[in-house]
Structures are given as structure tokens and as C-alpha cells.
């Protein structure tokens, strides 16, 4: 496989890898490093890539495992990931500025979710994968995924409703 082929294969889902990494690692720099690591790992095995049935699903699984390992090693070494994503370049439009606070609040709520639920919400609500694909990526059955997802969504709703009604922060 040549470099151009590899790039065109990886292009469609590299952002998804990055977003999943960022969801788990929070820090943008950490997520960038993780994404780079994963793409390089894929590139190293580019001869075997043809054998994988679904490179994208495989990469997402790799990302998940890699990030969880990262988190584990960070916790073991008593280091906390410090993130300094002070500016959010996504909310650039004027009418989004008002809603920015509450939108940021959602990301904070998501940070508090257990890892498993974070991953599932990320894959389902943001990347819009089928339950089937998610089941393959996470090596879980569909029912378990639905249960976790339902829990996560209800947690988000609960916390959102609380802030909306009482302004708790």
C-alpha cells in the first residue's frame, strides 16, 4: 500500500479518531498525540491493513484501548492531564455565543460520565454509528450498549434540567 492510498483510506475517519481521543483524554494536545500515534501504528502495519474487514472500526477500537491505557498510566503515575483548551473555535458564529455557556456545560457533564458511557455517547450521538458497528468496536452486545447509552443520556438530561431550572453550577 502506498502513502497516497493510505492517506485516502485514513482521511475519512481520522477526525473521528481524534474526537474520540479528545473525549477520553480531554486535552487537545493529548488527543492530537494519541491520534498521531494511532495513525502511525496503522501505517506501520499497512501491509496487513488489507486483511482487516473494517479498518475504521478497527481504528476506533485501537483508539479506545490506547486512550484507556493512557488514562491508566496517567493515574498510576499520579499525573493529571492538564488541559488548556481555553478557546473553543467551534463556536464562532455570533448567535452561538449566547448559547455557548450552556453548550460548554454539556461538555462538562460529559466529562463526568464513566469512560464506557463517554465512549458510547461519543460514538452514537456525535459520530452517529450504528449499534451494530459500536458493538463490534467495543466488543459488547447491543443490549448492553443500549442500556449504557440510555443511562448516559438520562444522566445528561438530569443534570441539564437541574442547571436549566436552578442554575446550579
Amino acid at each position, binding site marked *: 500500500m502506498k*502513502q497516497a492510498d*493510505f*492517506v485516502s483510506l485514513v482521511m475519512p475517519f*481520522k*477526525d473521528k*479518531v*481524534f*474526537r474520540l481521543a*479528545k473525549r477520553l483524554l480531554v486535552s487537545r494536545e493529548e488527543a*492530537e498525540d494519541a*491520534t*498521531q500515534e494511532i*495513525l*502511525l501504528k496503522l*501505517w506501520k502495519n499497512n501491509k496487513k491493513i488489507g486483511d482487516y474487514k473494517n479498518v475504521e472500526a478497527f481504528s476506533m477500537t485501537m483508539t479506545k484501548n490506547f486512550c484507556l491505557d493512557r488514562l491508566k498510566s496517567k493515574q498510576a503515575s499520579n499525573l493529571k492531564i492538564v488541559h488548556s483548551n481555553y478557546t473553543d473555535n*467551534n*463556536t464562532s458564529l455570533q448567535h*452561538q455565543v449566547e*448559547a455557548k455557556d*450552556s*453548550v460548554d*456545560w*454539556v*461538555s462538562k457533564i460529559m466529562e463526568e460520565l464513566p469512560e464506557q458511557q463517554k465512549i458510547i455517547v461519543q460514538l452514537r*450521538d*456525535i*459520530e*452517529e454509528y*450504528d449499534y451494530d458497528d459500536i458493538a463490534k468496536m467495543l466488543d459488547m452486545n447491543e443490549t448492553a*450498549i*443500549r*442500556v449504557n*447509552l*440510555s443511562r448516559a*443520556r*438520562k444522566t*445528561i*438530561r438530569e443534570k*441539564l*434540567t437541574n442547571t*436549566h*431550572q436552578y442554575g446550579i453550577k
Partner: protein
Amino acid sequence: MVLNNIEKLIEKYHNAETSIKEEAQLKAYFNGDSVAPEFEHYKPMFQYFSQSQKEQYTKDVPLKSKKTTLYQWISVAAVAVLMLGLVVPSFMGPTEAEKQEALLVYNQTMEAFSLISLGMNEGKTQLTNLALVGENINEGAQQASKLGTFSTITNKILKNNSN
């Protein structure tokens, strides 16, 4: 009617029973401007999901291809060849044919030198002739001076005679 539908969808959504299509419908509704006040608090969630979708990985990945490693080895090979080119001939020394050629050239130059030296010797003998000529001229000049003294003496004699 629409609100009823949305409410149902939201309920299904929280039970994780919605399909991708239905979720897209919800997202479209909450990203729009006409969100009913009773659902207002869901808005940031769906907006956040839609925004997060747009985040991109912008860093370049330095893909080291196999080619570059090949290029590296080519440079190593080039250096090796260069070293061989420098070292081997000095070990091997000149070949037999080269030796003969060198001898031939040596002989030719020696011949040429001997010819030159012959010419030089001829020139030298001519130079000795010239020196002889010079000597003769000196002798002549001496004789001429003798002649001078002779003439002064004759002049003196002539003076005495006239007195």
C-alpha cells in the same frame, strides 16, 4: 402534533430506542430556531453534539515511508563505493601494462633530456670560442696601447729634431 411527535422521540431517545434517522430528526429540530419552550433545556445538548461533529484533526502525521529508508541505504552505499574507489587502487598498485607504459614514458623523457644536454654542450663549446675571441680582442687592445706609446715617442723625437 409536531410537539407530540418530538416529545415521543425524546422519550425514545432517552431509552436509547431511536434509530439514526430519528436522532437526525431531533438534531435538526433542536438546531433550528423554533424550539418549544418546554424542550428548551435539551437544546444545548443537541447543539453540542452537532458542534462536536465538526471538530477536526488538523495536525500533520509524519508518515515515514519505506522509500526514505531505501534512500538512506543508497547514501550509505554511495559512501562505501567512494571509499572503495579511494582505498582499493592504492592497495592494488599499478598493473603490468601501466608499468611498461610508465617505463616507455621515462625512457622517452630521458632521451629528450639527453638531446637537450647535447645541445647544451654544443652551445658551451661555442661559448668557449667566444671567450677566445674576447681574449684576442684584449691582446689586440694591449698591442694597440703599445702602438699609442710608440706614436707619442715618435712625436717627442720629431719635436726634438725640429728644435
